[in-house]
């Protein structure tokens, strides 16, 4: 069976597509009204080319609700705008927005084009690296809320954004680095040109001393800013290393740069035999390039962790004397009364003072079945109100909420994480000591035999044993691999992941949302024997009733094919089910004893009963379906000799059957977060290196406790920010690929280190015996660096077989 894909977001569409949008004369299938609206907005704006330019599918859209419109209107209030809007002149303003859902460069084009075509928008610029947008508009012609609504209409989410401290630090750091790189690069080119003149003069031996000294002086003038401005971070790092008595790469680098520079100064003034200005500049430039790559990778990953969809809503209804007013959540204080409509997130911790409802606390507990909350009970900020409107009295806001507490816990757990030693650190420490030792030996030896040459020869040893290739070896490989993984949809947010993945021998999966889709599906429809209606008719009745509910179970009836019916007078009974009129008959659907107290479900799995006048008509079985690629992934991981465990808070019977279906031998059900953490600690004590893959907030302490943790792309933000890596594509098939790539990365790092050390070992004796001219040293240094970088870049060529998209119908639990 071939699966139709949504033209916009490329998610599979089950069954016959219900929605179509016309693109260039062809009716293209759509998965939901949201995507349809987005596609139509894009076409209407004459921006069809987006679909040809894009290299990644769009994000699944959400339809624009009335509430969203109301929420956006808040941003027109001047009091709210002062945070993120600057006035440019009389009626021209500029706002900073953060945009969520940008997947590739075509998104930038689409956003800039679309916003630019709105009347009253004078400029729109979107930054692909940071996902920030700057929009300038004329208040006489358009309102900010309209602009934000338009961004939403073409399928993105947007939020006001005032660059926090960290972001402005990033920007400052980035700019400083580019300046340093430019000075080093331009300086290196200039000095190399002068060096060629000096070399040719030295070779043909006919350069007059006045010219030679003049060119040396010029070289010195150019090299000075390179040393004191561009290379400054190395000196600073070296000082820090010496202070904490932990020699890193910065120490030999600084010694070589500083020593060569000072010696060259000396030679320039005394007319000595060699200057090394060219080596100094090249050296600085290469090293800075490596550091810059590292910096960029670090920035992009920490930005990845900064997500838009905050767990608290942006606005809520607050009681003001005797009316309700929509206010931004950060304006709430304790003892305020807030009204939460069904389908809204709860803005802060509070106590229900009127109404009762069911609340989805999955982002706190991981349980996706809602819990009932009544008057006088506590509700938590970040959870989702499902059935009825409730009024709450706020007890804790912002940093005092339970969810903020979890964040604090998490930070603590992270600090206690077992560290994974970096190869580079180990090698560099050893290398530094060796170079210093050898230099000392060489110096004392020559000091004995030829005191005049001792200093020069020691210096050439320092320049020749260029730590350059060595310090480039690891960062370039890591950066290339990180970039490649990013393309696969596997985003690394902590640096130790690449090296750590290789030591992992035990993989622990959470079940819900990780191995399963984390959404309830209709698994089976079983009409009660003797029922006259056709299955389609029964399904249509059920979906008509469920269409009125926000409950996760109701979502299972979303894509039911066939005729559409309307239900009237619908009443939902909390925690029980729904009743309503369809075709003027009263139906009930829900728990068996609610719908009709007359029969029991076929087995102990989750069944809903549709009944009319207490006559049972049809059973519907609801279950979560496994991801299609789960089984194959597990098989591949086990084939590479890794232990796989299924650890879940779900009922043991379900966990057991899932484990059986997937071929996992070790499993544990009904595990609380504490049990999970204890299990991981136990494994670690036995010497296992554990990779934990999960998605809920309840997994957070566990994610923090594992050696390496991986969160699914659809996980709650908290889980995402606390994990070491995020599987954005949510395709488990990328796990084996990631393991393969980390192996390759380590191989490349080893090759690079081996090459750098081999080069150094060859060059050292030659330098120590005083046989190496400075131009040879410079050439050797450059070549060795280039070889290392070229070797590392091989990692970024997607030669790996990317996780193939499997086309199969969701496989259900086969309980035999």
């Amino acid at each position, binding site marked *: 069976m*071939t*699966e*139709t*894909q949504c033209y916009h977001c*490329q998610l599979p569409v089950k069954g016959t*597509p219900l929605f179509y949008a016309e693109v*260039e*004369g*062809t*009716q*293209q*299938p759509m998965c939901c009204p949201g995507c349809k609206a987005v596609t139509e907005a894009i076409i209407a704006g*004459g921006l*069809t*080319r987006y679909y040809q*330019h894009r290299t990644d599918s769009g994000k699944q859209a959400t339809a624009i609700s009335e509430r969203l419109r109301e929420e956006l209107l808040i941003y027109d209030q001047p009091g709210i705008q002062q945070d993120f809007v600057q006035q440019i002149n009389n009626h021209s303003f500029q706002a900073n927005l953060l945009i969520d859902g940008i997947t*590739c*460069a*075509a998104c*930038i*084009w689409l956003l800039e084009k679309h916003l630019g075509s709105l009347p009253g928008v004078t400029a729109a610029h*979107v*930054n*692909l*690296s*940071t996902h920030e947008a700057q929009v300038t508009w004329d208040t006489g012609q358009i309102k900010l809320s309209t602009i934000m609504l338009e961004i939403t209409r073409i399928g993105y989410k947007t939020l006001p954004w005032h660059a926090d401290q960290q972001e402005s630090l990033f*920007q400052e750091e*980035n*700019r400083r680095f*580019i*300046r340093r790189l*430019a*000075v080093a690069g*331009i300086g290196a080119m*200039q000095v190399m040109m*002068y060096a060629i003149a000096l070399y040719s003069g030295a070779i043909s031996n006919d350069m007059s001393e006045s*010219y030679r000294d*003049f*060119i040396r002086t*010029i070289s010195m*003038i*150019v090299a000075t800013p390179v040393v004191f401005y561009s290379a400054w971070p190395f000196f600073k790092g070296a000082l820090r290393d010496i202070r904490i008595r932990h020699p890193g790469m910065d120490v030999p680098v600084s010694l070589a740069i500083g020593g060569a520079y000072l010696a060259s100064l000396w030679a320039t003034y005394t007319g000595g035999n060699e200057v090394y200005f060219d080596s100094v500049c090249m050296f600085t430039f290469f090293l800075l390039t490596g550091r810059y790559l590292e910096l960029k990778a670090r920035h992009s990953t920490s930005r990845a962790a900064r997500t838009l969809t905050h767990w608290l809503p942006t606005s809520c209804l607050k009681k003001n004397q005797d009316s309700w007013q929509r206010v931004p959540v950060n304006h709430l204080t304790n003892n305020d009364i807030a009204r939460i409509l069904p389908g809204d997130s709860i803005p802060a911790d509070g106590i229900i003072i009127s109404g009762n409802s069911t609340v989805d606390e999955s982002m706190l507990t991981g349980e996706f079945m809602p819990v009932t909350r009544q008057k006088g009970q506590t509700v938590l900020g970040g959870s989702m109100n499902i059935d009825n409107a409730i009024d709450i009295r706020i007890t804790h806001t912002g940093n005092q909420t339970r969810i903020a507490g979890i964040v604090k816990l998490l930070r603590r757990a992270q600090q206690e994480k077992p560290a994974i030693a970096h190869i580079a650190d180990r090698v560099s420490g050893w290398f530094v000591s060796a170079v210093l030792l050898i230099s000392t030996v060489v110096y004392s030896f020559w000091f004995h035999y030829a005191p005049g040459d001792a200093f020069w020869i020691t210096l050439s040893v320092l320049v020749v044993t260029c730590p350059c290739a060595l310090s480039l070896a690891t960062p370039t490989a890591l950066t290339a691999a990180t970039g490649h993984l990013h393309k696969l949809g596997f985003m690394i947010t902590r640096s130790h992941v690449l090296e750590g993945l290789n030591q992992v021998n035990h993989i622990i999966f959470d079940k819900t949302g990780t191995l399963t889709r984390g959404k309830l599906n209709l698994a089976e429809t079983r009409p009660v024997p003797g029922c006259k209606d056709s299955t389609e008719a029964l399904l249509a009745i059920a979906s008509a009733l469920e269409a009125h509910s926000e409950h996760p179970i109701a979502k299972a009836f979303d894509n039911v094919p066939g005729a559409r019916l309307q239900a009237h007078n619908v009443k939902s009974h909390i925690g029980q089910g729904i009743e309503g009129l369809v075709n003027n008959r009263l139906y009930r659907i829900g728990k068996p004893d609610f719908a009709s107290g007359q029969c029991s479900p076929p087995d102990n799995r989750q069944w809903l009963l549709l009944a009319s006048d207490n006559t049972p008509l049809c059973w519907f079985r609801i279950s979560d379906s496994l991801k299609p690629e789960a089984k194959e992934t597990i098989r591949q991981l086990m084939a590479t000799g890794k232990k796989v465990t299924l650890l879940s808070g779900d009922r043991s019977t379900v966990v057991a059957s899932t484990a059986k279906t997937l071929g996992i031998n070790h499993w544990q059900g009904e595990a609380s977060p504490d049990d999970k953490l204890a299990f991981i600690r136990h494994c670690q004590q036995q010497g296992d290196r554990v990779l934990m893959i999960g998605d809920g907030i309840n997994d957070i302490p566990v994610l923090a406790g594992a050696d390496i943790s991986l969160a699914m792309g659809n996980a709650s933000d908290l889980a995402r920010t606390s994990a070491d890596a995020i599987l954005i594509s949510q395709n488990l098939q990328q796990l084996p690929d990631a393991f393969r790539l980390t192996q390759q990365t380590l191989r490349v790092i080893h090759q690079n280190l081996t090459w750098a050390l081999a080069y150094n070992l060859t060059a050292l004796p030659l330098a120590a015996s005083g046989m190496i001219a400075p131009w040879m040293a410079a050439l050797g240094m450059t070549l060795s660096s280039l070889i290392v970088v070229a070797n590392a870049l091989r990692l970024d060529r997607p030669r790996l077989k990317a996780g193939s*998209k499997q086309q199969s119908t969701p496989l259900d639990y086969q309980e035999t």
Partner: protein
Amino acid sequence: MESLFILIPLALILVAIAIRVFFWAVDNGQFDDLEGPAHSILFDDDPAVEKTLPTGTKVKDD
């Protein structure tokens, strides 16, 4: 060859000016996004030509 004494310092001055200009560009945020502009040249702005594709749903295979 004496011209070198003039020409090389002249070249130095030019380099200094180049670096000043570069710093000015960096401070103006022209280097804040090193990814987006690289793609933007590929997006031609002429209106899309009407073309009729063979009817039927096209399933992109990737």
